[in-house]
């Protein structure tokens, strides 16, 4: 089975590329998991779909937010919505999807249903931000 903590996940958790609140942004959205206390706030700049975030949570959520920011950069709203659905399919079925590249690192969560919400939390925060632009 896929290990739920692939090197890429640990790496992005430890050394995120998109963490922090930008000086300017067009919209924001947030996600919180009352079960574990994880929180994430996503900041979106419409031009170029530039995403940054502030996260307080586990490695899976932090890495998911960071890799999500990579994945959605430059994409259209429709592409992001499709990607979000396909990402959920990866983590619930464990079936990799070549089109989603590095997001396949989360396929190991298929065997840990209690942790899937950690990976989807940044995506629901992003959906909220997109709703506001």
């Amino acid at each position, binding site marked *: 089975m896929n*290990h739920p903590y692939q090197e890429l996940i640990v790496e992005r958790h430890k050394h995120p590329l998109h963490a922090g609140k930008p000086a300017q942004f067009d919209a924001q959205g947030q996600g919180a998991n009352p079960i574990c*206390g994880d929180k994430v706030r996503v900041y979106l700049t419409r031009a170029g779909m530039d995403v940054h975030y502030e996260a*307080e949570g586990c*490695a899976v959520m932090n890495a998911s937010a960071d890799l999500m920011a990579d994945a959605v950069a430059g994409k259209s709203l429709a592409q992001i919505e499709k990607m979000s659905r396909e990402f959920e399919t990866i983590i619930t079925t464990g079936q990799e999807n070549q089109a989603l590249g590095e997001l396949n690192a989360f396929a190991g969560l298929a065997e*840990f249903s209690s942790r899937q919400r950690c990976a989807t939390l940044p995506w629901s925060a992003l959906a909220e931000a997109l709703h506001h632009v």
Partner: protein
Amino acid sequence: MSTTLQKLDVAAIREDFPILKQQVHGKKLVFLDSAASAQKPRAVIDAMTFVMESQYANVHRGLHYMSEKTSNAYEAARDKVADFINAASRDEIVFTRNATESINLVAYTYGRAVLKPGDAVAVSQMEHHANLVPWQMLRDAHGTELRIIKITDAGEIDFESLEQVFADGKVKLLAITQMSNVLGSYTPVERLAKFAHERGAKILIDGCQAIVHRQIDVQAIDADFYVFSGHKLYGPTGIGVLYAKRELLEAMPPFMGGGEMIANVSYEKSSWAKPPYRFEAGTPAIIETIGLGAAIDYVRSIGFDAIAAHERGLTEHALATLSDVEGVNIIGQAQDRGGVISFTMRAAHAHDIATLLDRQGIAVRAGNHCAQPLMGRMGVTGTARASFGMYTTHEEIDALAAGLNRIRQIFA
């Protein structure tokens, strides 16, 4: 019960718990989540199977052989519970679904019929949600006040705060845990009962955690209400207990209406059965209640002297071993504490710890442990928690420490 200190034969006890032979992710199961729910010994499994295979019918209704046999076994469990906690009478034992339901029963009946708007209920900062939310609901519905007694940084009751909370004489009920499900702290329930009684208040004790590890004597404590769940005491789910002093139960109206709880019913009105049946509407959890009786027999056959000595050794070993893991911070440092240990790790979030330990076959709990306000009080968003039962071994604690060291390396 023997007063000589017997040594617990852990290997023999482990043989009594079939599930401990299971493997998880190809690894030996190391079950360190007994505070959430304990595993079941063969004696409990067999007792429940026996009822269903050879001696089952509804209780208190039928005039036939099977009903009578089942009723006798069901009521024998009530005697076992009464004797186990040294209740003055079997009629003081009400069967419920779990401790949560027991507390809600008290909040809905005693809370509304005896407590008056303006009276206060006091709870501590380290209550499980089950001993906080029902009192918030009572406050909102009935106009009682809810007061919170502070705990110290070590995780013990702050007696100065307790004095303040009781100072104006409005507190009429102290609802408090005997052992925190997060910090492992015991509370001095005899002292708290005396304190409450001297100030004209009753005391409800949440014994869910404590009753698994210590001999409970509700008369020695002078508890007014004492609640616990069967499933943490090596018994089945779906069965809990409310102990209450007879005169309190007599004064309480029913919780739910239906069969079993009535004395006489007409289309216009009904009169209530005497306690405990007044509070046991509908067909009870017959099989589970008999299972609880078997669990009590099993625990008593091992004896609390031996259980407590074994668990004290485990707790000391765990506190020392886990403190040696770099970056591990144990939450709660109470003097009087048991085998429930919450911790955080500098490098890893509690849920990462739990998932990575699970990969090694080690089951711990992570999150807020149904004590969300306590997390804020202790300055954490969540913790990982290892908790022990009579079947836990020193080797399993060593496996936990080794697992944490591996996690530390992953996130280093």
